């Protein structure tokens, strides 16, 4: 099983959009995919799959980390809702304010339990060959939940826009965290805009970014207004599989699959 963590230095780079659609693309190719919301401070998957969450979620990932349920009880199989060839199961983080506050007050010892629990979940998915892919949608910046997910993953996908502040934030995360754990890392340049300050010298933006971050840019996804303005509860990979945004992610999936 391949474990991917989709991370970013700052918020609003498109992590959740990429994570959810990438999971759908892989599930539609016949893979068994597990998507986990590792953003306990700003859970998003419960919103994206809100129609399903209301009647299918018995336990949250928070409950699993707190030892209230087992691995098989926390994962919600949603494949039948989309008729994917493979299986897509999701572990949702609890979006209630009380749950977010609860996570914020956790101690170092709890975080140690949490990382061990994550490893046990991955081991469960690996053991019974339940999963081909596990994707963590993380919290931006340096948060315990994100670093826990990053440590547990095989590949770190950093999502960033070509904004200079994003570049600095990504550089810091890579230098201080991902590179320290010797994680294989790739970059997705999302919401790419050709009229960017990085192109002032008319140099290749991707080459510049790769030189600064010392990791390969595997995709350069342009900024699509219809994607940004679209209904987030409707999965683009399901509703518009021929959209250029999805086509770009199909290529990302190819690269990840062959890696």
């Amino acid at each position, binding site marked *: 099983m391949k474990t991917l963590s989709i991370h970013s230095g700052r918020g609003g780079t498109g992590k959740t959009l990429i994570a959810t659609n990438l999971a759908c693309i892989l599930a539609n190719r016949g893979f068994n995919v597990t998507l986990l919301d590792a953003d306990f401070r700003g859970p998003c998957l419960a919103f994206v799959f809100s129609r399903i969450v209301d009647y299918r979620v018995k336990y949250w990932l928070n409950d699993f980390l*707190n030892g209230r349920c087992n691995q098989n009880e926390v994962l919600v199989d949603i494949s039948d809702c989309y008729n994917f060839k493979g299986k897509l199961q999701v572990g949702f983080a609890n979006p209630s304010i009380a749950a977010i506050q*609860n996570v914020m*007050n*956790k*101690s*170092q*010892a*709890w*975080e*140690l*339990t949490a*990382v*061990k629990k994550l*490893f046990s979940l991955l*081991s469960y998915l690996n053991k019974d060959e339940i999963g081909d892919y596990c994707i963590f949608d993380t919290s931006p910046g340096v948060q*315990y939940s994100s*670093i*826990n997910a990053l*440590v*547990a993953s095989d590949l770190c996908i950093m999502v960033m826009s070509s904004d200079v502040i994003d570049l600095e934030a990504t550089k810091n995360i890579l230098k*201080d*965290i991902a590179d*320290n*754990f*010797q994680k294989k890392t790739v970059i997705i340049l999302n919401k790419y805009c050709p009229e960017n300050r990085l192109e002032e010298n008319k140099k290749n933006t991707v080459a510049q970014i790769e030189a600064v971050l010392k990791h390969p840019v595997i995709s350069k996804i342009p900024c699509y207004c219809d994607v940004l303005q679209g209904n987030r509860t409707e999965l683009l990979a399901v509703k518009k599989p021929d959209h250029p945004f999805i086509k770009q992610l199909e290529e990302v999936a190819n690269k990840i699959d062959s890696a």
Partner: protein
Amino acid sequence: MEKQFMEVKLLAKVVEQLKLINSKLDFLTQQNAELLKIYNARDVMPLSPKADVMTLLKLPLSLRKTVIALYKVERATAADIAKATGRSRPVESDCANQLVRMGLANKTREGMTIYFSIEPGLEVEK
């Protein structure tokens, strides 16, 4: 005569101060002995290690690899850790023992086998 009296008085003050220093040294020695007793007993005492991911960032890479291997299991021998990290058993034994000395891992013996583990202490949920 008065000068001699002053000298005796000064000497008595010095002796008094020396006694005070001595008593403080006795206290420190006793405290140190107690700390040493706790330190030496650590290999067999249940601890509450804090080898969380943020602490990991402060450790050298060699120790970090051992901790990550220990995250995946309940407990492991040096040979088990070596299998997970791809390094040699003596290297892992050295790293695991170093983590035990730092208070970041537990060490238990069952017969001839020594197990290492990273188990946080029980915590009441807030």
